[in-house]
């Protein structure tokens, strides 16, 4: 992973000093709330329902075990002992006081951590594939490019007061685990006909109030131009994005209103001035950064580990976990492991300080002291020997981190919702728990198969409900919380935006409605078909009927419920 040098470290400590001074001036009344707001936001500090919320940056989701311990430390000391891993691979603490925020940041700076640009109308934390560097089908490791872009975007003086927030993702290849199509700007690694490395560039995606999937801005951009091209895009957006209405201010609206061809023409015209200029990357710089992400000294291991195969055969719980939470690794004898933060009764993405410490410990003993956070709000240990999976599993299970549900219905993605967030219309967490309760049978869950269920507490869509196979959106109806259901969303290169299926439901109606949709799926499903594929094959009508009552499933479910 990237190791800070003296300059990187100095920038972070200077930022802490700057923010400490700004906070002080605000507290003594020299900076008004209006003046202070954009400053605290660019340091990740929101004012929320109970206390300020502090969003800490985890650049492209990569953490060392030491950094994880530092996060555990501040979670324990300054919060109430639980942190929330977000859909943008960051960590959010909900009980930080404004007065203490500079202290928290000073503490984290010791571990090369910060909250720089985790909010505000600027370039936000860059996200990527949690399996970067170990994934099987990768054109190239996206982490060095994410780091190069992190440095370029950090304290970029021209792009700190954009029309609106700007989210950037880098994807390692065709699988697009980074979901470039739902980002303002996405770089997807690719090779051209001459085998040169570069990017397919996507622009104008985003969820929120007006969900739009990104479009291809450029089929192929050679790697050395990535910074000058990004600068051209950001300048066109900064000068021409709408500022009169914050709901129309994202780059997706500019791209949509100009049309992708005209937007591309403006970007190319701007880029003509910048191309091959000093911000063009050099081979030496690309190599220097890539060196930080060089593969560890993997051992030569056999393809099959007898102990592992034996345990899988004889322990059905272990084999269920392996089937869901263990991923193939590009190096023989190794695997990547997802530690689930979706245990029954656990708010999706939440981890206690003790769990964070435990994960740091596991990362050191079963890997190279590296941890990844995922867009789906789980944690990954990227380099575990297959021969040690059984031991790891038992320890992870004891810490509540081994629920075998990755990619299944209970691997729910959810924002913190109305329990914490002041924007939310509805509470996501109790609903997530109710759904988890209803689908607690792991055998049944595994049988249902791959499933993406996303919950957002409001239209800002932090829970990415538009791209869930089933999406649930909290809405406010005369002060009462209701939930709107969307169907047919999908992630990655098959990305689709789900469509609303009908009137919104009361909270207690949602879990049974999902149950009936799943039952409907099982009626029409072909062997081993995924929910989303059945849905796309037969259309949404029978699912809608299952929810709203014109279906035999509904009648049966009513009788079953009435006893």
């Amino acid at each position, binding site marked *: 992973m990237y190791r800070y*040098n003296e*300059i990187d470290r*100095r*920038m972070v400590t*200077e*930022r802490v000093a*700057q923010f400490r001074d*700004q906070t002080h001036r605000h507290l003594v009344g020299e*900076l008004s709330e209006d*003046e202070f707001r*954009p*400053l605290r936001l660019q340091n990740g500090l929101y004012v929320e329902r109970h206390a300020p919320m502090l969003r800490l940056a985890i650049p492209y989701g990569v953490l060392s075990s030491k950094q994880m311990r530092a996060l555990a430390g501040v979670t324990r000391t300054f919060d109430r002992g639980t942190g929330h891993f977000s859909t943008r691979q960051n960590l959010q603490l909900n009980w930080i006081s404004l007065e203490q925020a500079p202290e928290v940041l000073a503490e984290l700076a010791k571990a090369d951590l910060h909250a720089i640009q985790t909010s505000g*109308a600027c370039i936000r934390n860059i996200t990527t594939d949690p399996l970067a560097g170990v994934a099987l089908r990768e054109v190239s490791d996206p982490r060095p490019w994410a780091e190069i872009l992190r*440095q*370029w975007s*950090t*304290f*970029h*003086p*021209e*792009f*700190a*007061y*954009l029309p609106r927030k700007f989210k950037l993702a880098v994807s390692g290849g065709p699988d697009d685990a980074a979901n470039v199509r739902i980002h303002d700007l996405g770089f997807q690694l690719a090779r051209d006909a001459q085998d040169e490395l570069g990017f397919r560039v996507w622009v104008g995606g985003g969820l929120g109030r007006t969900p739009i999937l990104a479009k291809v801005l450029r089929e192929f951009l050679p790697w050395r131009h990535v*910074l000058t091209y990004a600068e051209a895009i950001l*300048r066109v957006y*900064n*000068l021409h994005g709408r*500022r009169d209405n914050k709901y129309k201010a994202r780059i997706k609206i500019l791209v949509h209103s100009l049309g992708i061809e005209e937007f591309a023409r403006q970007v190319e015209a701007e880029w003509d*001035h910048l191309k091959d200029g*000093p*911000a063009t*990357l*050099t081979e*030496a*710089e690309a190599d*220097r950064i890539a060196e930080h992400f060089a593969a560890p000294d993997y051992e030569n291991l056999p393809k099959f580990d007898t102990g592992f195969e034996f345990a899988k055969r004889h322990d059905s719980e272990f084999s269920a976990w392996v089937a869901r939470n263990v991923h193939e690794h590009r190096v023989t004898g190794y695997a990547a492991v997802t530690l689930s933060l979706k245990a029954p009764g656990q708010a999706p993405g939440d981890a206690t300080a003790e769990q964070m410490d435990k994960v740091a410990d596991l990362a050191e003993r079963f890997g190279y002291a590296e941890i990844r956070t995922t867009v789906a709000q789980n944690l990954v240990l990227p380099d575990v020997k297959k021969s040690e999976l059984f031991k790891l599993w038992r320890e992870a299970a004891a810490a509540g981190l081994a629920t075998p549900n990755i990619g299944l219905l209970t691997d729910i993605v959810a924002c913190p919702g109305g329990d914490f967030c002041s924007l939310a219309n509805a509470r996501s967490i109790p609903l997530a728990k109710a759904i988890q309760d209803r689908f607690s049978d792991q055998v049944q869950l595994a049988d249902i198969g791959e499933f993406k269920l996303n919950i957002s507490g409001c239209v800002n869509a932090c829970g990415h409900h538009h791209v869930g196979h089933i999406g649930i959106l909290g809405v406010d109806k005369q002060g009462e919380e209701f939930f709107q259901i969307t169907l047919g969303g999908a992630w990655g290169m098959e990305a689709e935006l789900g469509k609303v299926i009908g009137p919104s439901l009361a909270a207690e109606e949602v879990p049974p409605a999902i149950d009936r949709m799943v039952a409907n799926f099982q009626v029409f499903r072909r062997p081993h078909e995924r929910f989303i594929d059945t849905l796309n094959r037969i259309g949404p009508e029978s699912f809608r009927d299952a929810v709203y009552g014109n279906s035999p499933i509904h009648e049966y479910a009513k009788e079953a419920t009435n006893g």
Partner: protein
Amino acid sequence: MAKLIKNRDIVEDNWKLLNLAANDTPETVKLPVGPLLVPLPVWQARRTELVRREWEQHDPLGVWLAPEDDPADIAADLDDFSVIGIHFPLAADGRGYSIATLLRTRYGYRGELRAFGDVGRDHLHYLHRVGFDAFVVQQPELAIASLDDFSEAYQAAANQPLPLFRRTLRA
């Protein structure tokens, strides 16, 4: 007289800022004597008169741009101005940062570039990096320190044409 930060110094500001009131037109608005910053429409409507005024009365001339003004419109005129002002009606409107960047890096403007409006000390560092060298700001004596909030930067900008990776050999 008001003060401003200029070239890392606090100096008297003897410039007048011409604003168009609701019943003014660029063609008819009265031009006060002394160093004068005019809005872009006044420059466009009365350039001959303004240049003659500068020559004959030795009153320095400047123009100021609003966020929606295109700096390309004055790219051919830069030698006519001692000062270019960029107005920030709201601090959150960051178009002025790109306008400044373009004036410095694309059109080659080397005179005074002045930020005014909703400009506070917490904006000075970034404003300085995109090419501003003069700042109309409250309490300039206190604000001036914020020019140096950061001692290094990763990316190229108007005040530093080379990105960090071209300047230092980094291990």
